[in-house]
C-alpha cells in the first residue's frame, strides 16, 4: 500500500511565524501535491512537483512556497503565516500506471494561525 505521511495532525502558530508542513511518501513517486481544504470550497491545489527541485504553481499559490530536495519529501512553507491561512492542508502523491493515475493522500494537517 502507498503510504503518505504528514508530520503533524494539528498545528497552532502565530501570525507572522514561518511554518513548515512536511510530507513524505514511500513509493518513489515522482509527482506530489499540496492542497488546502476549506468548508464549502472543497480542495484547492496550492503547488505541485513532478521531480526533485521542480515545482509548479497550482490554483492558489499566493502566500506559499514549496521545497522538494529529495524525491520522497515535499514541504509546504508559509513564509509569514496569516489568519486566512488557517485551514486543513492535504498532501498527495501520484501513482502512474496501467490501472490509472491515482492520487494517494496523507491524513492532513489542521493548521490554526492565531
Amino acid at each position, binding site marked *: 500500500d502507498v503510504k503518505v505521511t504528514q508530520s503533524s495532525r494539528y498545528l497552532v502558530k502565530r501570525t507572522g511565524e514561518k511554518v513548515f508542513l512536511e510530507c513524505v511518501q514511500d513509493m518513489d513517486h515522482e509527482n506530489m*501535491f499540496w492542497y488546502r481544504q476549506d468548508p464549502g470550497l472543497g*480542495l484547492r491545489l496550492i503547488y*505541485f512537483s513532478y521531480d526533485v527541485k521542480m515545482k509548479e504553481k497550482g490554483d492558489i499559490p499566493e502566500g506559499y512556497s514549496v521545497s522538494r530536495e529529495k524525491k520522497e519529501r515535499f514541504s509546504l512553507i508559509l513564509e509569514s503565516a496569516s489568519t486566512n491561512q488557517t485551514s*486543513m492542508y492535504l498532501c498527495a502523491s*501520484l501513482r502512474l500506471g496501467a490501472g*490509472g493515475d*491515482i*492520487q494517494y493522500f496523507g*491524513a492532513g494537517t489542521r493548521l490554526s494561525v492565531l
Partner: protein
Amino acid sequence: GIQVEQSPPDLILQEGANSTLRCNFSDSVNNLQWFHQNPWGQLINLFYIPSGTKQNGRLSATTVATERYSLLYISSSQTTDSGVYFCAVEGGGGADGLTFGKGTHLIIQP
C-alpha cells in the same frame, strides 16, 4: 479551468438505503476519481474512472464522458459510509493536479 459540480450537497439516509451521487464537469477529462473523506479527514480513493463502469463491493461508479457526468452508487448503506464524497477531475495531458468538486456530505443513520 474545468468546473466540477456535485449533487446533492447533503444527504441523510437510513442504514440499508441506496444512494446515487452525481458529478458534472464542464470539459473533457483525462482523469476522474471518486474519494471518500472519513470523519477524521482521511481521503481514500474509491475509483479511478475517466470513462465506463466499475464496481467494488457495495459501491459502483459510472462515467459517461461524452455527456460529462459521473455517478457514484452506494447500495445497502452502512453507518461507516458516512462522510464526504468528492469527485475530482483532471483535464490536462499530464499530472497537473486534480480539480475537486465541493463534495456530497452523506450521513447514514442507524
